[in-house]
């Protein structure tokens, strides 16, 4: 891509945002309803490098909320999402890890990330990820999500923080309610919005 088309792509962005975000390296752990939508928002905002990690395939029940299409079914999420992100910005740098994330693999996979997006679905996984990240990289922010199931109740979604931990959602609504596109995407975009704010503050 030429500099001219790069400027066109981000012509409507907030002034100063693209220049800073182009230097940013953001990790995304999990590429489901949260992670895929966060990745799209950060790509459109102008983040320069994304580190993506997931070991799952796209399945049809993912399509009610995740950023995939019928033609992606059966593909690895890291591959399918990388293609979609490059279709938005061909200059985006993507480091993809086709790996089962565990407390052992997490720190190595995201060693280069200045900020991590937690985008898991199981609460137990969110718990070990937060603890492992904060122990390993106490100065680097982690932006998490908890409580995004169901629909409506938009005013109950909020951001709470302590130290370098930020958590988006209502901390209550559980996936037994079912997961709906709108509310999952709101929380994913809350995570992206917090991440952008933190990256701008770190300038």
């Amino acid at each position, binding site marked *: 891509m030429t500099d001219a088309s790069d400027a066109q792509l981000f012509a409507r962005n907030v002034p100063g945002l693209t220049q800073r975000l182009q230097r940013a390296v953001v990790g995304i752990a*999990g590429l*489901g*309803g*949260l*992670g895929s939508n966060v990745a799209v928002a950060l790509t459109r905002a102008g983040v320069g490098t994304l580190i993506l990690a997931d070991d799952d395939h796209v399945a049809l029940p993912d399509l009610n909320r995740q950023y995939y299409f019928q033609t992606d079914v059966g593909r690895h999420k890291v591959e399918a999402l990388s293609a979609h992100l490059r279709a938005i910005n061909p200059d985006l740098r993507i480091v993809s890890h086709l790996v089962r994330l565990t407390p052992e693999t997490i720190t190595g996979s995201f060693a280069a990330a200045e900020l991590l997006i937690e*985008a*898991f*679905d*199981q*609460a*137990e996984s*969110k*718990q070990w990820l*937060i*603890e492992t990240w*904060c*122990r390993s990289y*106490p100065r680097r922010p982690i932006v*998490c*999500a*908890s*409580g*995004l*199931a169901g629909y409506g109740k938009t005013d109950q979604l909020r951001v*709470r923080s*302590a*130290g*370098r*931990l930020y*958590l988006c*959602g209502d*901390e*209550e*609504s*559980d*996936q*037994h309610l079912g*997961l709906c596109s709108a509310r*999952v995407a709101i929380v994913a975009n809350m995570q992206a919005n917090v991440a952008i704010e933190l990256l701008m503050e770190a300038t």
Partner: protein
Amino acid sequence: MLTINDRDRVDWKPGMTVRDVLDAMGYSYPLITVSVNGQVVDREEYDHFPVPDGAQISVFHLAHGG
């Protein structure tokens, strides 16, 4: 005095641990993340991690879904 989630107050006692604070608050739900003065505490350390007087404690509930 301890402050929990910027809202609730718990009397501080010498030797208090994260577990004592959770018990005092009646938190029995296991899927939580706890921070003491901005530092996330591993759940294996709840029984031993000392909580100083005046600490700001945050308890985050982790719900399934993503």
